[in-house]
């Protein structure tokens, strides 16, 4: 099982959720499986913590949800809104900037 990585997780679940929901509408369990698959199991969440993130994103208008009955269970499917699309673009560019900075820091010899 992949290790969870709480100290580095701030903002990452939000970025991954928005990215995945940009492609398809999904429900919570499906999203967790997709995060595992998309990250090669490098990122593994305590699965229950995905729901506060989803509800927060829905509350701020980045996501919308609808209920669907599937095989006797009511599932809540989430999908991206226009505001969510903008949020995804911003998070993506923030992430690339930070990633570039970290890569530079790791590859540049230390002057300390």
């Amino acid at each position, binding site marked *: 099982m992949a290790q969870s990585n709480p100290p580095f997780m701030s903002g990452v679940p939000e970025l991954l959720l928005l990215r995945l929901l940009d492609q398809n509408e999904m429900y919570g369990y499906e999203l967790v499986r997709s995060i595992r698959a998309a990250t090669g199991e490098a990122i593994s969440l*305590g699965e229950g913590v995905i729901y506060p993130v989803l509800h927060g994103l829905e509350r701020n208008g980045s996501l919308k949800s609808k209920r669907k009955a599937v095989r006797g269970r009511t599932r809540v499917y989430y999908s991206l809104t226009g505001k969510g699309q903008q949020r995804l673009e911003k998070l993506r560019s923030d992430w690339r900037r930070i990633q570039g900075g970290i890569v530079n820091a790791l590859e540049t010899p230390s002057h300390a």
Partner: protein
Amino acid sequence: MPSKPRAMPRLDLAELQNELLRSGISPRHVRRTVAELNDHFEDLVDHALAEGAESTTAHERALVELGDLNDVAAAIRSRPELRSWAYRFPYLALIVYPLTCLALLPAVPVVAGIAHAGYLARWAACILLSGVVTAAIFLFMQLSITLT
């Protein structure tokens, strides 16, 4: 001696539910979180069973994969936007709202009267009619006493 069968692990969300409500999370979000966690747990159990796990093991695995419910509670509490409006705007809830209700209270019968004018008219007519019938009975009794 045969070993005792293991107890079936259960997902108990009652404590999480109570804690979230006590923390001021909106009841709608609490109900939804509990329902989604339940469904997620069932999906995890189904997945483990499909992989050939025995039922008790499947439930144990599902509990582990769902994660610590204290972490879920902490993640929800860290999002002020999921709190009920009374917790987000306490002055509004504790001062403005009750004062507004108090101010509107005297107007309620008038508003209700306008909205239900037909009922009120029928009710008044019935009261009037019953008053007339009662008065007529009393008059008849008084006259019968006086004239005999």
